[in-house]
């Protein structure tokens, strides 16, 4: 989930060019991201924090409070570097925090690590 189309494209292409096989879904705001996540039930969700209306942290909390999404790993990808934001994200249930700008290879590595934590790993990630 990111409101910036170029950031969504960058994440999508970073993952697809990595050689792994992912099913990737995109959302540009918090509400549609939640609908999409509940419909798809992805293994990994990548969230931006600063969004109009519903931001990444409330989405993160919603995912963690949904019993059907307990195995979903959350990676925050944000330009905010303040320790408050990082702490708040991790407290809300995110497993990793990636700051923008990032190296595509580093993002892929974080996604692979997150997928390794999920019980079944059918190589599926969602950039909601």
């Amino acid at each position, binding site marked *: 989930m990111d409101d910036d189309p*170029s950031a969504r494209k960058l994440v999508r292409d970073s993952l697809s060019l990595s050689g792994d096989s992912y099913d990737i879904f995109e959302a540009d705001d918090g509400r549609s991201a939640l609908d999409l996540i509940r419909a798809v039930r992805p293994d990994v969700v990548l969230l931006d924090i600063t969004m109009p209306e519903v931001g990444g942290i409330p989405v993160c909390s919603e995912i963690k409070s949904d019993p059907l999404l307990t195995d979903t790993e959350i990676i925050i990808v944000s330009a*905010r*570097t*303040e320790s408050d934001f990082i702490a708040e994200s991790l407290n809300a249930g995110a497993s990793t925090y990636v*700051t923008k700008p*990032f*190296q595509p290879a580093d993002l892929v590595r974080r996604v692979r690590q997150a997928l390794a934590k999920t019980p079944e790993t059918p190589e599926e990630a969602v950039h909601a």
Partner: protein
Amino acid sequence: MRHGTNVRGMLNPTRAPRETIAAGLRCLILITVFVMARLQPDARTTAFDLVVGIGAAYVLITTFIPWSRYDARRATLVMLAVDVVLITALIQTQTGVRSEYYLLYYLPILHASVRLNFRDAAGTCVFAAASYLLVGMLEKPDAAVTTTVISRVLTFSLSAALLAAFFLVLSHERKDYERLTNHYRDAMRAKSEFLSRVSHEFRTPLTAIVGFSQLLYEHEKDLDPSRQHEYLSVVREQAQQLARMIEDMLDITRIDDGRLELQREAAKLSDLIEAAMMFLDSPNDRERLRVTMQPGTPFVWVDRSELEQVLSRVIHNALALAEEQKPISLSAGMVDEDPDMVRVSVQAPGMNVDEEDLSPVFGPSAAVLSERPSSGRALGLAVARALVELHGGRIWLDDTEGTGAAINFTLPKYTAKDASPEVIVSDENSGEGAEAYGEGESDDSGRRSVRAETGARQPEPLR
């Protein structure tokens, strides 16, 4: 019951510190009186001097302690205490009060001039002089000595006034210094917040630049030429965006520091708009802009290059905020309610005011730069607002429900009184109609160097 409260207060000083202190002082006074009554006359005088000395030192020290609480009532209380001390000394000694005791009257004056304002200090001076006179007359009530007393009172009044004036000036300086220090601290905090937000904004274009260039570098062989071109386009666009943001930040700093001086001249709006359009990135953006000039729109009295910056930023933002690829319209004309101003309005269909964090830019306060905008886009509009206000105009947002929104701003009209011998604008198209300035005003000086618009021109579509 009251006694019970005091006891509780003494037992728990944090709950009632004032009551505790008051009870302690009462005990101290009682003990002092008790001890003094049992002393020999000589020792009694020494003890009295000691108590008065401690009291005076207490008042003196607390006067200069910044966190101690002082008000006019306390100054009066200190003066009354001095009266009591002097009269007590008078009754006790029968031979007159030692002259050093009269120095105690400087205490309330010092106190009022250091801690209070001019009115309180002056009032305390007058009351202290009156008390001084009264005690002096009580001391030696024969006519011959009264003249001496009056002369002493006059000397006292003069020295007291000088003392009060000296400390009033000092405390005024100190307050000014504190105010400046606070102002400086606030400004530094605002600047740090601004830099922190701006650095966050810089990360958005940087993410695309770093990410896509890295993908290009790592996967050059896997990417077909069209994808490579697409990535390069994104890198180019985002680099331009980053350059614009750096420019905006430097402009804001320049305006903030008061380093920007406007070089005003009479300028034709349509020329400025055309110049501003050169800043647009693509021919498609230029195609999307529809310009309409109201007939007889006068010249504006502006800094040409700064106004081009305003126009380019407003147009750029309207293009970015409008619904995908829809044309935006720019119109200019006179302001009905203010004949000295020219209004420019940029209408963007589908522009959602809530969509971006524009509220700080168009908020009610004029201090746009202290309301540091939080988005990169708002940064550009903040520069536009600051520049418009520097010109004496104002900028605001009209939200037309359902159809979009318009960014409006006003600029001062050029009038003949603005002209100075140094300000001469060359008329490269003098054949267009040089008989008047804008709406047909004639120049009192008879100069014809400023290019004029014809008064009865039809709406002027630029494209």
